[in-house]
């Protein structure tokens, strides 16, 4: 490598430092401009309305500033019940999705790429039909005179129609069906990246299939499981159609109550307060969950 000397080197001055710095800045702004449309959309469609609702929740219908909307939430036991139902339905749906989705994702992750892609299409197939159609389809299947009860009784499996719909059971069946792909996708993604030789190494070192699953595969698939469970849980919190149709009025979740407040009572303040509290509770829950996960991973680091 030769070193440039003489007039040519001298005339470089600061070696274009200022110009290069300017180029870098321009590049950074150009990159940012790629995100600008999305940022604008988020601002207009999310930040502004949520902020507006939050603002509304501090006023009565007459426009008088008040904390009444929040006092009602605390004082009326029906609200506590609604929140409890919402979190219970969401947690149960998430748990059932995890139990059903994990083996499915595992199966798919072990398939050759072509077969796995085919399975993925099958998993995603429900997305191609409307959510409302799928929910009503479940109603047809699950009702007292529906396909499942008719067949079950004709085959003599049970004698009375089972209460499969217009209750918690129906709601959970419908919600699990709709939510399953949301947990399978991230799970499959994280399992696909787990190096197969790690499981072989575990076996080589003396681990039975169960031991190598528990000690190696499961911990490595946890990020996918956590991500999927979070997505499902959060989507469930805001679910409206499925609990309304399949719950038969017996499963009232926060979103149903918000709809009633607005549709029936035109009470924007109360509906906004419900939304704000749900958002707050969700954030607290996520924070606690992330703290717990961090603690667990610290404890587990040495093992």
């Amino acid at each position, binding site marked *: 490598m030769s070193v440039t000397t003489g007039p040519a080197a001298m005339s470089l001055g600061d070696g274009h430092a200022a110009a290069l710095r300017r180029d870098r800045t321009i590049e950074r702004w150009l990159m940012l401009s790629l995100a600008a449309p999305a940022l604008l959309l988020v601002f207009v469609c999310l930040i502004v309305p949520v902020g507006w609702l939050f603002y509304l929740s501090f006023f009565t219908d007459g426009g008088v500033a008040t904390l009444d909307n929040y006092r009602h939430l605390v004082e009326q036991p029906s609200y506590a019940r609604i929140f409890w139902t919402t979190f219970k339905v969401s947690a149960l749906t998430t748990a059932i999705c995890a139990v059903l989705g994990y083996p499915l994702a595992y199966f798919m992750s072990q398939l050759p790429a072509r077969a796995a892609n085919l399975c993925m299409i099958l998993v995603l197939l429900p997305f191609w039909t409307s959510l409302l159609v799928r929910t009503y389809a479940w109603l047809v299947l699950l009702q007292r005179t529906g396909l499942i009860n008719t067949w079950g009784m004709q085959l003599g499996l049970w004698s009375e129609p089972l209460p499969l719909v217009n209750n918690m059971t129906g709601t959970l069946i419908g919600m699990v069906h709709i939510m399953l792909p949301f947990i399978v996708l991230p799970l499959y993604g994280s399992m696909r990246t787990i*190096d197969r*030789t790690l499981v*072989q190494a575990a076996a*080589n*070192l003396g681990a039975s299939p169960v031991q190598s699953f528990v*000690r190696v595969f499961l911990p*490595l698939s946890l990020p996918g499981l956590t991500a999927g469970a979070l997505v499902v849980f959060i989507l469930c919190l805001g679910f409206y159609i499925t609990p309304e149709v399949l719950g038969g009025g017996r499963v009232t979740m926060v979103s149903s109550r918000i709809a009633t407040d607005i549709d029936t009572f035109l009470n924007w303040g109360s509906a906004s307060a419900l939304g704000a509290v749900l958002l707050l509770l969700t954030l607290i829950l996520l924070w606690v969950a992330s703290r717990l996960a961090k603690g667990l991973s610290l404890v587990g680091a040495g093992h």
Partner: protein
Amino acid sequence: MASASALDIHVRQVTKSYGAIVVLDRVDLHVQAGEFLTLLGPSGSGKTTLLMVLAGFTRPDSGSILFGSEEVIRLAPQKRDLGMVFQNYALFPHMNVAGNIAFPLRLRKVGAAEIAKRVEAALEMVQLGGYGTRGIHELSGGQRQRVALARALVFEPRIILMDEPLSALDKQLRELMQLELRRLHEKLGTTTIYVTHDQREALTMSDRIAVINKGKLAQLDSPRHIYSKPNSRFVAEFIGESTFLNVAASGGVCRYRDTVIKADAAPVREGRCLLMIRPEQVQIVDGAASDNMNCFSGRIVGRVFQGDTLRIDVDLGGGEAITLRVPANSAGLQSMPADRESITLGLSVADTTLLPAED
């Protein structure tokens, strides 16, 4: 040096095919107790498949494998009690160094105090003392390699398998690790099977080398022998450099262009044979050649300086050529004949090796 507990391995008629592709074709192999045996072959030769069959990860179609006197062909991998070093190390990313090494001990229900002691001893053995609390992602390639080795050795397995463990390391580190692995093997005396496609690595480390080609065992011999007395053109070309001359064998004598080739051994068969010439075994002959040499005359057509040696291509006419190497010291460089000059090359009778020609 075999330790008392070292096992020998009998591989008998092991066959494995994927559809129409035969990966292992009735392989027979006897690995002696305490031996360092290398499976050497080009990629796709079946050497890794054979290792995976030994480890229990690949189920062969037929055959028998004995560890000592125990038949293991159907035994699950976790019951084979083998230590394996994987090509990509296969260290558990969610455990630290000590956790990885303790893994096989925990499975064997070893007590905590004993585990701590043995993990530290294993780390000392691979010269990583005090690294126990490091995360796997904090280690360099060479350090990961050592951790993988420690993990494979810590539970004192009956047999050690290594699948190209050094292929991801840079040249200097690789050569250092080769000597270190060799030293460890001499200390422990565990039967070791090592897979590589690097002939130099195989020559450096092995007690014996098994050359695998197209799912078959091509030759099994000591490094010295396999280099100097390969049994086929494939082995000769795969291990070391060589040029070949077509010779005709009849009546137990070989002739190259009507000149009798003097050799210690009679040609392997009648008809067409190959004379193998290693570049460092031929020399330039000045004046009269001695009796124990076969001589070839030709014309220099190329000289390339390659640092430690000078590579010279000599054209014998008729489309045949010999490549030789002379040390690139000042004496060698000065006495070098010029380009296009006619020279005579000598190959000593002891180095004269005849191979069967492929049809």
